């Protein structure tokens, strides 16, 4: 393990890779700041660039972008009440009221310190948890993997939000359906290609990620009317002091530590991710806060800002645990990273820890370096970076579209990909308008191939019987978890309906 850590440290400390972390954090911060564009889009935009790099450098760049985007999202949440991504929605609850009170500088500094604490604690936990889990997962067989993927996909759907579980399932199925297009890997039969040679290789993962997120989100920005930016300007130009007093530090440190630990464990769960971690920690802190402090929540409470910021950062690290050790992404963002790793020819999973320890460890170590970069370089530069928010959308939107299209075109040099991308982006817009979540689609698409492969092996071994789902204890455990995750939301809905019925009857009487 020590050898691996040293190899990772050596890889990260290479000047090129250090530069990747710095560039990643800056670019991520900028893209994350743009309202509507989240970490998924930021990473999708980076993929074409990483194709020319070593796998470890590419992953380091993407990890930096991920961190930067989450941090950038917090900045726009605090300054203009427009979260760059869903995980920083909670940050706006108290961050924006603080900015309105003239404490934008302090809010930004607190966000950076909390992110740093979250990042540091989760990096330490990752250092312990990831190798342990990687060792356990070495004993996994294809049946376990298949059941585990079921858990991952069902968890993503279950955590999709109220009223969206069914739609998230449909999107997961759509993702899996899209993954079946092209030559079947087992027998070599073309499927759903309609005689088109362009479809023999299946859909490009980059194209799908770019069209549904980077391009789709930008086109949504065009579709929605422009926001008035008068209030934005006043917040940006007047940040106020960034100083945090000793008393405030003493009060907030336990909040940050608690939220980081909670955030990490929520992040490790497949499907849960940074958004749920942020909401949970905010709720937890509000519940355990003294009464006078509790009333401040939603009106500019520092606890209400520190808790989600620590949690979302810790959860971002936590979500790397299932990706690196099991090869199962827990969120849309890590799903994109999995896709990128597969494109490099690297198969994440337990073997990654053994075959490519430099990638495994360099990603973990680069996360910590990324945190330091965010803290030391980005925080002092925030007043200047935030000025970028003032770049008019008339210039910004066409530029992002240009980068999205060029990103796909420069990989294949095939204009057909551009047209497919436009078509997919248009479909994505309608899906967004109908409130269908798109992250499960991406997750289904990326896991589709692996899932079919493992299902094939499992069914071959069990001679077509589904008994493989309960024959091995590990598989049985995963299968039961998947069933529980699928059934729980339905049971909860029925339970709530049953509980509310007497109330409604009383009201009608």
């Amino acid at each position, binding site marked *: 393990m020590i050898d691996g850590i040293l190899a990772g440290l050596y890889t990260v400390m290479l000047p090129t890779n250090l530069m990747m972390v710095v560039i990643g954090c800056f670019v991520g911060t900028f893209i994350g700041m743009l309202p509507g564009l989240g970490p998924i889009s930021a990473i999708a935009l980076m993929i074409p660039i990483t194709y020319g790099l070593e796998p470890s450098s590419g992953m380091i760049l993407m990890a930096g972008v991920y961190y930067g985007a989450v941090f950038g999202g917090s900045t726009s949440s605090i300054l203009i009440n427009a979260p760059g991504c869903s995980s920083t929605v909670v940050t706006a609850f108290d961050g924006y009221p603080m900015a309105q009170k003239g404490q934008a500088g302090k809010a930004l500094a607190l966000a950076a310190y909390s992110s740093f604490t979250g990042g540091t604690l989760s990096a330490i936990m990752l250092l312990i948890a990831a190798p342990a889990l990687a060792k356990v997962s070495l004993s996994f067989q294809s049946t376990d993997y298949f059941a585990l993927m079921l858990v991952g996909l069902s968890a993503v759907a279950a955590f999709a939000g109220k009223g969206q579980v069914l739609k998230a399932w449909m999107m997961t199925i759509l993702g899996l359906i899209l993954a079946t297009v092209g030559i079947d890997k087992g027998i070599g039969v073309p499927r759903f290609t309609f005689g088109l040679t362009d479809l023999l290789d299946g859909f490009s993962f980059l194209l799908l990620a770019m069209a549904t997120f980077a391009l789709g989100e930008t*086109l949504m920005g065009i579709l929605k009317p422009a926001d008035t930016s008068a209030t934005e300007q006043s917040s940006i130009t007047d940040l106020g002091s960034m100083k945090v007093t000793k008393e405030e530090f003493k009060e907030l440190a336990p909040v940050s530590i608690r939220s980081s630990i909670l955030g990490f464990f929520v992040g490790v769960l497949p499907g849960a991710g940074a958004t749920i971690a942020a909401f949970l920690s905010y709720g937890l802190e509000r519940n355990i806060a003294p009464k006078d402090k509790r009333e401040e929540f939603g009106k500019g409470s520092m606890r209400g800002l520190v808790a989600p910021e620590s949690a979302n950062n810790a959860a971002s690290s936590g979500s790397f645990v299932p990706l690196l050790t099991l090869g199962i992404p827990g969120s849309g963002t890590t799903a994109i990273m999995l896709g990128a790793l597969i494109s490099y020819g690297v198969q994440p999973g337990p073997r990654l820890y053994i075959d490519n320890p430099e990638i495994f460890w360099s990603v973990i170590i680069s996360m910590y370096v990324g945190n330091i970069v965010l803290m030391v370089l980005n925080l002092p530069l925030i007043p200047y970076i935030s000025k970028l928010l003032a770049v008019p959308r008339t210039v910004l939107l066409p530029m992002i579209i240009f980068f999205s299209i060029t990103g796909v075109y420069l990989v294949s040099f095939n204009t057909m990909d551009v047209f497919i991308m436009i078509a997919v982006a248009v479909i994505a817009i309608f899906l967004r308008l109908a409130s269908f979540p798109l992250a499960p689609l991406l997750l289904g698409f990326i896991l589709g191939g692996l899932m079919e492969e493992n299902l094939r092996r499992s069914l071959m071994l069990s001679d077509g019987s589904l008994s493989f789902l309960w024959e091995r204890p590990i598989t049985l455990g995963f299968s039961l978890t998947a069933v529980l995750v699928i059934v729980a939301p339905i049971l909860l809905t029925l339970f709530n309906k049953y509980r509310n019925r007497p109330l409604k009857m009383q009201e009608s009487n």
Partner: protein
Amino acid sequence: MKLNSASLLCRDRVGGLIFLIFCLTYGYQTSLIPSYPGDAFAPFTARTLPWMLTSAGVLFSLLLIVMAQPEEKSDATLDFDWRLLITFILLMTAYGFGLTWVGFILATSLFLLAGFWVLGERRKSVLFGASFPFVTAFWLLLTKGLDIYLEPGYLFLSL
């Protein structure tokens, strides 16, 4: 719940219906996947997963159709700028053709110029400064810096 045309044709129900049709078409296409002799006895074929997905897709879309709740009336959709979006889609499509016919620099510069203009940018310094010089610099970075070969447009090749 009262049933009327609005609640029958709510957004979720229409979405579910479209997905159902899509899944049925997918199912039909699955039946067209060529099979090999002996496939009937094989525990897993190229059709196995697609059949499973068709069944799951049909089940979920039927559930959505049955369980869909009519949405509350909102004016939000009326505020959407569909004309602008369609203009941009046409612009992007033209850009796709332009990449083949007039080459990277001209197509990209014209796309950006038109994009800025359509979104309401009228300052000449921005219109021309952020298009041609920016794209030329980007092209130089790609071709000279990263050694990526970008094919000239067909129109220039034929000259």
